[in-house]
């Protein structure tokens, strides 16, 4: 760490050393032409490159600061990162000031608003958890609009009152100026909120409310700022009802207009990504350019730029994530984080540096203290009032502690500072006072409130983790309730709160998907297809892992070893089937299916006794801990943590896969027991488990018969996405009864004979099946996906290894019907390694 301090210091010194000549050269003016007398080998070209050089150097220095205090983790635990950056900014500012006697580097408003802020907002919009955001949009808007207006009005009026009372001494200001000041300092700042709340981890509703408010209040802030600025220019006398009405209208225009600009650009981005399949290398760049353009366009039209950028990110994320290649998506995500995090760092460092400048400081104790006091008090009052109103309409009311945190979390930050710098000195005689006050407010909120936020949250036991140790029954029951609610909402068609969302989903699926998404992406919106896709990927990676575990992937091509493991595991029956499989099923690469099949087998060791021995060793285990870890999280609780620092990989798909598999399996069992009235389903399930992905598809095939054979996929909401699978399984539905009938009649027969006849049935029916299958084959899917979803009846003619990998699984499962002893009831759903 000392080494890094030293290097930082050296860098800063270099910086100063470089900057001094630059100042000197600017002072002496230009036009000193050098008449050369001999060929120069090396020239000192500082004048030409000093600007980009300084910019790059400052970026580097700011980011190095981040590195510096990361080395001391105790520090970051107490003080939020933003606070530390400000401190380092002070140090740097002090050094520069000491060297130059004037603050050469300050945060210029233009730089801030046009080069530093847009990427933060774009990142915020792009990573926004949409469902949560739109679900709470009403509350967010109430806080953003009404809350900010309340803050601005009360602060301005209170300061005016105090000024009239003479508490502030003799300052040259007026009601309008104070109202303007109130409006620019009233707004909760998104940069500061992200920076502080990210480290605190409150519950997601609370987070989204504060965060959403900080983003959406820009609409109000811009309007109020412009309105009051215009009023100040006009002078007090000219303000009449017309002007005030115009002000109110301008609010709507600015806010709604800004959002519309953002939406338009989101549409553009989505349409663009639809066509960029061949230029994937540069695809991610479009997002950034168009996002930035949305910001600039709104700014150009004097609409709310932050709103525009936010909504651009919010609206386009779904479509571009679907349209773009996975690598592009991850590129976009990572790059956005780099830019946003980098910008934030630079902003805070410069906020610190800008303070070390005596020329801007005008100290008026009363003004500053009163501002701080009023900000605090009125924020709390506003939050409590608005929450009380909102709670009448919310299903889950916000409790007192949440309100406290929300009030306390009203942080002010760089946006206010940037706005105050934009003021015209001639109109606002007290500009310096306002700048000083703003800086003090920003420091107070970011540092003090930032430091105390975490302890406050812990002390108040804000709902983040369990408060008291709940009993196991409570824990289980809570989770059951969550699942129950989700199920009831699904059954009841998500009416009410979700009714609008439902309608929107229908509209979206009908029109927007068609317009904005590539055909491939459209299909992948089907959640079930997503699962299949992920299962395919999981298959592929597990094959590779298995291969690498054995040394190399050469085994895949090794045909001779195919028999051995199967015999050991499954007995003689399977080996009889082997020749049949081997001859028929050569994959497109002439990879024998059996070797692939073999690979998928070993990962599952279902020997229950081995399991028992191991488990008995660990006597002390915490059932609570286990529950905590392994309970499925319901859909509502899906973790939507917006984190500037970490890229969250959404792990919820595993959960959905497992649940889905299990449900399908149980449906399959009940269906089979209903149809056949025999116990075999239990055994089938055991063996189906051997091959997770395949059983899903298979179970789906079978169980689809009772579920989907009835009529069309008419009902919009839940079946819209599933229309493809339903068509697929209509085909399956015709095959299956034949199969089932075979099973019924041939139950006493040895298993081997069932298979050929079933396949024969498939052959006979395949001619009927082919048209309906081809109907879906028009979709340009990748082969593995397609084959995976295709029902078994294609198997005799298809030569896809994956598909044929499936059929032996079924056959082996069925072949197991009579011989092995039945595993215990219920416990047969054993374990995976």
């Amino acid at each position, binding site marked *: 760490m000392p080494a890094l301090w030293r290097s930082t210091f050296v860098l800063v010194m270099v910086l100063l050393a470089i900057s001094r000549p630059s100042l000197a050269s600017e002072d002496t003016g230009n036009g000193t032409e050098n008449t050369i007398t001999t060929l120069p080998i090396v020239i000192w070209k500082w004048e030409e490159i000093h600007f980009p050089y300084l910019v790059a150097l400052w970026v580097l220095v700011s980011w190095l600061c981040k590195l510096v205090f990361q080395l001391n983790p105790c520090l970051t635990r107490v003080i939020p990162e933003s606070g530390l950056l400000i401190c380092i900014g002070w140090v740097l500012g002090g050094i520069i000031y000491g060297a130059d006697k004037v603050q050469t580097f300050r945060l210029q408003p233009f730089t801030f608003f046009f080069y530093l802020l847009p990427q933060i907002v774009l990142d915020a919009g792009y990573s926004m958890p949409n469902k949560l955001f739109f679900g709470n949009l009403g509350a967010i808007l109430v806080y953003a609009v009404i809350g900010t207006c309340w803050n601005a009005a009360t602060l301005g009026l209170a300061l005016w009152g105090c000024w009239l009372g003479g508490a502030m001494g003799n300052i040259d200001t007026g009601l309008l100026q104070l109202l303007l000041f109130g409006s620019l300092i009233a707004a909760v700042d998104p940069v500061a909120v992200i920076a502080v709340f990210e480290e605190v981890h409150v519950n997601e509703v609370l987070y989204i409310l504060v965060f959403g408010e900080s983003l959406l209040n820009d609409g109000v802030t811009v309007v109020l700022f412009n309105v009051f600025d215009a009023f100040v220019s006009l002078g007090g006398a000219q303000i009449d009802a017309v002007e005030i009405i115009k002000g109110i209208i301008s609010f709507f225009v600015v806010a709604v207009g800004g959002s519309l600009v953002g939406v338009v650009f989101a549409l553009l981005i989505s349409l663009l990504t639809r066509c960029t399949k061949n230029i994937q290398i540069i695809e991610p760049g479009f997002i950034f350019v168009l996002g930035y353009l949305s910001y600039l366009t709104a700014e150009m039209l004097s609409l709310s730029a932050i709103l525009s950028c936010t909504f651009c990110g919010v609206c386009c994320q779904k479509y571009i994530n679907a349209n773009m290649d996975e690598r592009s998506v991850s590129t976009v995500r990572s790059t956005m984080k780099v830019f946003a995090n980098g910008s934030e760092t630079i902003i805070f460092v410069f906020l610190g540096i800008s303070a070390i400048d005596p020329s801007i400081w005008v100290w008026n104790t009363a003004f500053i203290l009163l501002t701080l006091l009023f900000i605090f008090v009125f924020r709390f009052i506003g939050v409590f009032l608005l929450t009380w109103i909102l709670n009448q309409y919310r299903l889950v009311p916000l409790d007192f502690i949440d309100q406290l945190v929300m009030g306390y979390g009203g942080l002010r930050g760089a946006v206010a500072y940037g706005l105050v710098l934009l003021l015209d000195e001639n109109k606002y005689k007290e500009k310096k006072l306002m700048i000083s006050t703003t800086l003090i407010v920003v420091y107070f909120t970011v540092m003090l409130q930032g430091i105390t936020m975490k302890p406050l949250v812990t002390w108040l036991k804000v709902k983040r983790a369990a408060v008291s140790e709940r009993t196991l029954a409570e824990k289980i029951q809570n989770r059951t309730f969550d699942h129950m609610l989700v199920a009831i909402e699904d059954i009841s*068609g998500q009416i009410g709160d979700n009714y609008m969302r439902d309608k929107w989903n229908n509209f979206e699926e009908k029109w927007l998907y068609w317009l904005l998404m590539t055909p491939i992406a459209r299909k992948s919106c089907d959640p079930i297809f997503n699962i299949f896709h992920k299962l395919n990927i999981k298959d592929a990676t597990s094959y590779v892992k298995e291969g690498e575990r054995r040394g190399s992937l050469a085994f895949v091509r090794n045909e001779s070893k195919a028999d051995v493991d199967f015999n050991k595991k499954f007995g003689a029956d399977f080996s009889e089937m082997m020749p049949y499989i081997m001859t028929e099923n050569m994959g497109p690469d002439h990879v024998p299916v059996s070797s692939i099949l073999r690979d998928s087998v070993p990962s599952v060791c279902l020997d229950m006794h081995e399991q028992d021995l191991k488990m008995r060793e660990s006597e002390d285990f915490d059932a609570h801990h*286990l529950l905590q870890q*392994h309970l*499925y999280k319901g859909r509502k609780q899906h973790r939507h943590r917006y984190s500037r620092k970490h890229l969250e990989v959404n792990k919820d798909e595993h959960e959905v896969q497992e649940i889905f598999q299990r*449900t399908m399996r149980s449906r399959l069992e009940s269906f089979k027991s209903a149809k056949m009235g025999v116990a075999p389903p239990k055994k089938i399930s055991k063996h189906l488990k051997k091959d997770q992905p395949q059983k899903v598809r298979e179970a789906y095939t079978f169980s689809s018969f009772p*579920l989907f054979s009835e009529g069309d996929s008419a*009902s919009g909401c839940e079946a819209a996405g599933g229309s493809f699978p339903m068509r697929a399984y209509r085909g399956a539905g015709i095959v299956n009864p034949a199969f089932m009938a075979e099973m019924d009649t041939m139950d006493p027969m040895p298993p081997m004979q069932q298979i050929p006849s079933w396949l024969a049935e498939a052959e006979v029916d395949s001619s009927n099946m082919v048209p309906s299958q081809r109907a879906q084959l028009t979709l340009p899917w990748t082969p593995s996906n397609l084959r995976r979803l295709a029902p078994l009846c294609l198997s005799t003619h298809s030569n896809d290894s994956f598909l044929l990998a499936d059929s032996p699984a079924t056959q082996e499962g069925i072949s197991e019907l009579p011989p092995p002893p039945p595993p215990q009831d219920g416990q047969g759903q054993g374990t995976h390694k």
Partner: protein
Amino acid sequence: MNLWFSCFLFIIVTPAHIVRLYDRFEALDKEKTGHLRPQDFGAINRLAMNPIGDRIIGAFFSPGQETVDFHSFVRILAHFRPADKKHPKDPSMPEPVNSRTSKLKFAFQLYDQDKDGKISRAELLQVLRSMLEMQVTEEQLESIADRTIQEADLDKDDAISFEEFRKSLEKVNIDHKMSIRFLR
């Protein structure tokens, strides 16, 4: 809908909601028989991704019945209406469907599939199995079930009765946990 029917429903849901629920009922009832069968519920894709989805579907059907008509459909959904805090409980009236007790009874029935009034160890195991990730072994599962019963079982009969169930959840805000906005 006849007058009596609508009056009854009015007690538990408001007319506007009834219309919406009826639309939903009709959307689910693809063959327009006026009744819903398990398959109709099964057509809801998202339910397949719910660990207790099938149990909830089962809860709609009274024992022995194969179909559910609109009346029962609404009645079950009415359990999820937020409790009416404003009007005091009238002891002479029957227990409203969305009271805390009724909600708890609904939850209890999800566990107690054989309707013997107790959640036996096996039933608890089934529910746990469905709600826990597949990595959890049988041993661990049984251990959790044992401890749960231990904590909640007061009369030591190795099963959880409804009273014990209710008592173990006395700290939980059932009204919030088991309510949906549209039924407000």
